[in-house]
């Protein structure tokens, strides 16, 4: 398949809709992406033809549902080049739950008072709060790697913060605010020197660029289906088999056990040990066509498209008087998210005006309050792109800044 945006757009029914009488311009893809017809159809097909609970029933429907569910697992594992895709992929609800699983199931067993957990100043709350909680429970300490004015991790600080006491390095591969792509492979090398495990938050990277867990040599990778054309309610946790084997379960219940007495139980083999209770069968099954869709395009082509439109957005927005763009100015160093402010207009006011023009962006602290403080702002606006976004949508965004101007006056800079 060649990268034909018009053809791609035809696969996304929602892109035909109008908002406030204007064609939808959807620039909130870092929050969640839209879904192609293939994914929507797969959900309907499952419910219409083989809806059944998995791993237990001995009837035809249960066998078909189980096969499709496990096929999605292998599909997700191969997408990130897992060595054992049938065992190293755990389905959760979202990236947040994947990280909580590791923080709890690994952290409770292996962290001791004085051990250190290292993350970065640009983490999403989902890769921060789980570690704060487990640090509180185990006596481990938290350290964070600082960033420079251009939104990059300071390498000297990577070397300063990761050391003998480090047991966990938890780092995002792509910032959801600045878009910065972090050198997680190099960071993992440093962590390994000290025997620390490395968890990569791939919520933003896996949907937008080729990610290979064996090349990164990370221990865990967490990401979400809904940010990569798939349904909501499906998270993925990749973990190296020996590490997953060594961990105790996260949640207890049905499906994750072998033998149960009133006093104790033995646990199921991987990956079922970590999937207690009936999982999100339909959405997991409908995740497979989302991966198929991206692979048919090719992740290199997805990345190339995003570099092009992101650079265009950075250049066009930066050219508007009063606009401040945060993060790397070179789209080759970042993902498809452009964070900015317009004068001292509050991003909520800007977002409200843009919505009236049919343009959906994100405004707020992006679940990264510590980073907002580092940037010296309360909140920012963020436009984020995906495979179906065109340059004329960037133009629509820039034009709509004029509408904000008409209401608030010159970038709202008139206020004392």
């Amino acid at each position, binding site marked *: 398949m060649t990268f034909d945006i018009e053809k791609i757009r035809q696969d996304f029914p929602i892109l035909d809709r109008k908002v*406030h009488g204007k064609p939808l311009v959807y620039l909130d893809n870092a929050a969640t992406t839209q879904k192609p017809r293939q994914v929507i159809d797969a959900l309907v097909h499952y419910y219409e033809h083989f809806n059944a609970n998995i791993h237990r029933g001995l009837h035809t429907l249960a066998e078909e549902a189980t096969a499709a569910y496990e096929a999605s697992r292998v599909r997700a594992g191969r997408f990130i080049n897992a060595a054992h895709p049938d065992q190293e992929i755990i389905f959760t609800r979202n990236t947040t739950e994947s990280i909580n699983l590791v923080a709890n199931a690994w952290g409770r067993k292996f962290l001791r008072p004085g051990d250190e957990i290292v993350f970065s100043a640009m983490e999403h709350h989902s890769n921060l709060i789980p570690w704060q909680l487990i640090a509180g429970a185990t006596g481990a300490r938290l350290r964070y790697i600082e960033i420079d004015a251009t939104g990059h991790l300071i390498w000297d600080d990577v070397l300063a913060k990761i050391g003998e006491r480090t047991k966990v390095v938890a780092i995002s591969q792509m910032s959801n605010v600045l878009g910065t792509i972090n050198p997680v492979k190099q960071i993992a090398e440093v962590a390994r020197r000290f025997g620390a495990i490395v968890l990569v938050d791939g919520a933003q990277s896996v949907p937008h660029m080729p990610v290979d867990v064996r090349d990164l040599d990370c221990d865990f990778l967490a990401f979400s289906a809904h940010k990569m054309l798939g349904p909501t309610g499906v998270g993925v946790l990749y973990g190296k088999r020996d590490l997953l084997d060594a961990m105790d379960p996260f949640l207890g219940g049905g499906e994750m056990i072998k033998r149960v007495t009133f006093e104790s139980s033995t646990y199921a083999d991987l990956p079922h040990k970590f999937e207690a209770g009936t999982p999100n069968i339909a959405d997991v099954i409908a995740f497979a066509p989302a991966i198929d869709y991206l692979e048919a395009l090719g992740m290199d082509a997805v990345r190339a498209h995003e570099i092009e439109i992101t650079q265009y957005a950075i250049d066009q927005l930066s050219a508007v008087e009063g606009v401040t763009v945060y993060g790397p100015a070179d789209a080759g160093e970042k993902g498809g998210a452009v964070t900015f402010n317009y004068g001292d207009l*509050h991003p*909520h*006011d800007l977002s*409200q*005006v843009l919505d*009236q023009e049919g343009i959906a962006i994100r*405004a*707020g*602290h992006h679940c990264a*309050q510590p980073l*907002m403080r580092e940037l010296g702002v*309360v*909140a920012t606006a963020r436009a984020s792109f995906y495979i179906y976004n065109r340059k004329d949508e960037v133009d629509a965004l820039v034009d709509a800044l004029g509408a904000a101007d008409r*209401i*608030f*006056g010159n970038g*709202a800079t*008139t*206020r*004392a």
Partner: protein
Amino acid sequence: MVQRPEPELDELYRELILDHYKHPRHRDPLPHADVRAEGYNPVCGDEVDMQLAFDGDRLTGIALQSRGCSISQASGSMMSGLVEGKPVREIRRLSDEFKQMLTDPDAPVPDDLGDLEALRGVGKFAVRVKCATLAWHTLADGIDQHEQGNSAVTREEA
């Protein structure tokens, strides 16, 4: 689902609101405050610092410094002008009236809210209601502190 006409942006951003946003009143910190209160909206990060002075059960002085969107700033500015000099019981009544105006589109339009009546359109933009009520929640917290004889700073989450 009840179909209501689509709200227009000029119902939200009325001239009076923009005026209060660009030229907020009661912004200079109160030098001899009896009570200080802080408000915070975790959804958008908006912050309010408020100082209050009382004579018995009458609010004799109010000042607020805020960081936030036009709606939250304008609401705080308008509110300060309305409540200064009024007894606490009256302020509580006005607060209830204001909140009802924003949350119940069928409620009659009150005639004693002064400039704040301009914020009526906010009710049509549900996510912005918390912006408009942040200063009011902070004020309520300050009044509670005064009545409990407590002048320590507390933080009110809207």
